[in-house]
């Protein structure tokens, strides 16, 4: 058991790290641009569409986190695709020129094949 307990020695550092990652600097910017878009699933056990308002400058990673919960699909199991471009989670929707009324597809991360 001892070895295992040793692993928990620097708990404090982790907490700091946690706060850092959970409070991105961008979230402090007031009244950024919002877009109202349609999210459509291609995966999952039913076809679903949700109209949602999202921050155009938010990291797509954050949007996936929330949308994943709404659709019941873990965020690492789908990509967001807009107008044929697969969105990098580190970018924001504004990088892809997303506008009100656009559709965003939730597509599978199908990189297996063996």
């Amino acid at each position, binding site marked *: *058991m*001892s*070895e*295992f307990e040793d*692993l*928990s*020695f*620097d*708990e404090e550092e*982790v*907490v700091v790290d*946690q706060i850092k990652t959970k409070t991105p600097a961008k979230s402090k910017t007031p009244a950024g641009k919002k877009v109202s878009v349609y999210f459509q699933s*291609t*995966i*999952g*056990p*039913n*076809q679903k569409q949700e109209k949602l308002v999202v921050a155009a400058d938010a990291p797509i990673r954050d949007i996936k986190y929330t949308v994943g919960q709404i659709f019941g699909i873990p965020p*690492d*199991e789908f990509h967001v*695709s807009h*107008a*044929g*471009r*697969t*969105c*990098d989670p580190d970018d924001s929707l504004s990088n892809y020129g997303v506008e009100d009324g656009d559709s965003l*597809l939730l*597509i*599978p*991360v*199908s*990189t*297996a*094949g*063996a």
Partner: protein
Amino acid sequence: MKKSNFFSNRLTPDEIYRLDRQLRLPGWNQEALKNSSVLIAGIGGLGTEIAKNLAMAGVGRLYLVDMDTIEYTNLNRQLLFSDGNTGEPKAVVAARTLFRINPHSQYVPLFSRLEDVDPAIYETADIYISGLDSVSARRELARRAVHNQKPLVDGGTTTYYGHVYSYIPNQNACLECDPLKERERETLAACTLVGVPRKRIHCLLKGQLFFEANHGRPPNIHELSEMEIVLDYANNLIQEHFPTDEPFGLDEAVSIIDHHEPSIITINAVIASLQSQEALKILHHLHGTKLGEPNAEYTIYNGLIGKFFYFERPPNKNCLLCGEFAPPVERLVVPSSTVCGTLLPLLKQKGYFYSPDDEVMFYRIDKTEMELVDLESTLSELNIRHGETLYCPGLTKSGRDVDIYVKILYPEVTQ
């Protein structure tokens, strides 16, 4: 006279008899397929199905590239392999089985990494088909497709879903237009595990560590009592830190601790069949027969609801591989006895300049380990192969800085 399938000189009487039913297809050109060669990258769940389809359809030559050996767990979906084959190279066994399926075609097994396949084969093959399971291998194949201007029929699966996408040079997006990233996976790396579990999955990984700390070895996933120890520990943590989340079940725990991509023959077969059908059409088109229209859209299959989804993928003009500012490929036809330094005046002739103070360097990139080219040696002394690509950064053309790729072609092979 119009081409005939039934009276083709390219096909033996045996072959004509065997292929009889497909020779009756409207618009079909068997000779075109017989004269075709296809490189299949990855001979796994998708690759075995694709190879089977193309062999039975009478495609003249298949290059089968795979660096892996057969495992017992492949046998639920890879029909070219059977019980006695475990441990043998996939490419070799596949070639053997395919020859039994249709002895009229050629099967070239390449038990090798994609990087180390002879560049001449990438030059020769009409199209590439990917049945790969990693992002890095896909990127390697994508670069070859763009540099050699070859169509690449990509496919992939995950659980009950899959996709098919044919890259068609100068028409739609290449695979680097939106760079793929390797999927991030939670592992036992201690950094994610110290302190309070931040995610549900950390609870299971902590359960695994707990077992290891007590037994001095990882849990045996086939031993129920050991898995129960892990689960107990994990689910206690779940109750404490994620009370609204589901506890871990045995099957979930096994799939996470002993991680492998889930895979089922039906989804593989659907995706592989679509890839094969696209490939057959593209081969017809490349040989001058307009059979149907290749699907240039990204196609998704959702096997849980039995539906398909499609969307266009326009090229990204800023793509580092196929975009406006991507390094261009210059094809140089030179005898193999040429001293490498001579490539510089040849490039100058094509409008590329370099500052005399700078040392221009060429790197060999068509191999696993990148290598610097010794400019005083000849191409043949360095064993630089026909069709090999060299990367040459830091030139200027029309006043702009450019990096370029140089493709070496030998006239003795080209003619």
